[in-house]
């Protein structure tokens, strides 16, 4: 099955009308490369569970309308609410536009921030969605962390489509210099009733002996579609602790690629996805162990209710000669509804001899015995269900690498879980 293609003529028109801020050559190169390969389809092994038709449909409607740039000033309230409640050095990309005010407000001497347009880089061949991102990009953010910072660096990607279909790109390049310890908050949020497609790219290089703690929250409006690619390369003896929380969105596809090309790297990455009626959340992770010794540990957990589908595909590749690799993968799912579907697939490819690898996947329902135990103590069914689903999510929430965010994450996870469970109790009453 092949979905309808993106209208390439309209796309070309829209790309050519973008303001020339020095990114035109890379946009043209990306467009050409994109044109050659097109979007992935269900026939591609990495995309067999996720149909990009909604991306095509929304994009085509937006392209037909001339690819209007969405206003970013109207998002002020949402931006203020987040940047004022969470203490961080914030940078904001609103409806695809880098907000200069936030760029200019960064004065900490450990953080160097610039726009792609300040020093345009030549286009490098990428995967199709990243090509599309480069072709339609207004401007990107480049960050260099040269010294330890007093508080996390926050990257807020916020979108709103008011009445017509919207499309917005965000692209962030981060370089963490050797020996530096840094914390990042990456927050994707949106509102609005119209359909919207957000496409984001984030690349990070963690220097030798540097240590990064990174929290990523995706809390998009329920009709919004997002694809994202996050690529992290670690230097010698570098450390990365990352956690992703996916709460919203109609169709979400996250690709996380971690490249361990130098010895001594240590990576821990966790994920939590909460999906309700009509949601499709797909997490594809890939770790390339190119040399040893190095350690990667990932644990993703999902809570699914209603008619929804989630995908977890965790790939670890231990390349020839990467002896001393220790790679661990775990994926656990709690299905609260018979209509919920999870496609969980751990993949290990090992070409080295001296390695330690493990993987485990579980799919289960709420434990009836535990439910009865709590009810026999006087907690009603809803409360007991809430307590048990929270407990399932708790590990991933409490292990959050950026402690300044734990409270916020706890609150939004609680809120989303309550909504997921509430839907059941409402339908119980109606049926």
């Amino acid at each position: 099955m092949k979905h309808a293609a993106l209208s390439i003529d309209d796309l070309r028109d829209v790309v050519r009308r973008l303001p020339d801020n020095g990114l035109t050559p890379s946009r043209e190169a990306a467009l050409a490369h994109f044109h050659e390969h097109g979007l992935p389809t269900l026939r591609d092994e990495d995309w067999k569970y996720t149909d990009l038709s909604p991306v095509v449909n929304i994009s085509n409607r937006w392209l037909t309308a001339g690819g209007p740039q969405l206003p970013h000033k109207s998002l002020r309230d949402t931006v203020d609410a987040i940047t004022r409640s969470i203490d961080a050095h914030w940078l904001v990309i609103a409806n695809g536009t880098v907000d200069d005010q936030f760029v200019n407000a960064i004065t900490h001497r450990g953080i160097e921030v610039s726009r792609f347009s300040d020093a345009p880089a030549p286009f490098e061949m990428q995967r199709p969605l990243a090509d599309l991102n480069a072709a339609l990009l207004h401007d990107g953010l480049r960050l260099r962390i040269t010294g330890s910072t007093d508080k996390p660096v926050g990257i807020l990607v916020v979108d709103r489509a008011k009445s017509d279909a919207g499309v917005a790109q965000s692209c962030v390049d981060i370089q963490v210099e050797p020996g530096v310890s840094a914390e990042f908050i990456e927050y994707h949020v949106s509102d609005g009733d119209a359909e919207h497609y957000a496409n984001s790219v984030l690349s990070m290089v963690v220097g030798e002996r540097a240590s990064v703690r990174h929290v990523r929250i995706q809390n998009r409006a329920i009709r919004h579609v997002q694809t994202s690619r996050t690529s992290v390369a670690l230097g010698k003896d570098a450390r990365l602790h990352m956690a992703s929380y996916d709460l919203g969105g109609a169709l979400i596809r996250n690709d996380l690629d971690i490249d361990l090309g130098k010895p001594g790297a240590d990576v821990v990455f966790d994920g939590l996805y909460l999906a309700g009626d009509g949601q499709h959340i797909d997490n594809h992770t890939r770790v390339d162990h190119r040399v040893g010794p190095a350690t990667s540990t990932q644990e993703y957990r999902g809570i699914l209710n209603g008619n929804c589908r989630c995908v977890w595909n965790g790939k670890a590749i231990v390349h020839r000669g990467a002896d001393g690799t220790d790679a661990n993968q775990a994926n656990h799912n709690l299905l609260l509804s018979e209509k919920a579907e999870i496609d969980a697939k751990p993949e290990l490819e090992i070409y080295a001899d001296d390695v330690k690898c493990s993987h485990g996947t579980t799919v289960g329902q709420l434990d009836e015995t535990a439910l009865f135990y709590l009810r026999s103590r006087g907690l009603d069914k809803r409360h007991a269900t809430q307590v048990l689903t929270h407990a399932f999510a708790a590990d991933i929430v409490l292990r959050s690498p950026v402690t300044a965010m734990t409270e916020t994450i706890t609150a939004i996870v609680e809120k989303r879980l309550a909504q997921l469970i509430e839907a059941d109790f409402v339908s119980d009453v109606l049926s």
Partner: protein
Amino acid sequence: MLEIKDLKSRIGDTEILRGLSLSVNAGEVHAIMGPNGSGKSTLAQVIAGHESHEVTGGTVTFDGQNLLELEPEERAREGIFLGFQYPVEIPGVNNAYLLKAAVNAKRKHNGLGEVDAFEFLKLAREKMATLDMDPKFLNRGVNEGFSGGEKKRNEILQMAMLEPRLAILDETDSGLDIDALKAVAKGVNALRSPERAIILVTHYQRLLDYVQPDYVHVLSQGEIVRSGDKSLALELEEKGYDWVREAASA
């Protein structure tokens, strides 16, 4: 207080209780004994409202109220407590959180406000001291990584905090060493009062050395085949359950 008449139940196609009748009054301690598979635990679970048991006949009333109509949580709030034979481990749920939620659910049901956090902790620590429990258990996951004895003490702690009118302890004595058994017995005896009733479900009479029952019933194949005072337990210990079965069929 508790009136069970001709109670019949099944799990799937298997009949478990086959016409059981029992009357328990306030202030009494009843021991229910019987061989494995006689229906002791089923009786405890049916009273508490476990959904895997289908009640196919008979009635159960608690202070005149039809108990079988109530959800498990409503029964708990009305003052029924079931101490589990195998207390459930719930990682990620704090023991103190559960205790407090349970106490507050009951208080709300009785038209009272939520318990004050300070008072709650003070009370919990007092009760834990009498059960020789380390206060650290409050901040651990519910029964998570607890030993068998610790789990049973935790059940008794919950009971002590909830002050039920009817406590049913399902094989609370099984797998306990002598110290834990004494601690559990102390907790149970502390709860004895003219307003409360206690049902001890047990396989052995060992616990009954520490908690003296007023009545002893012997269950076999889903029915009470013999009732008596505490001397019945000693007689059972001496003669074994075959003796009851033979006597019942004679």
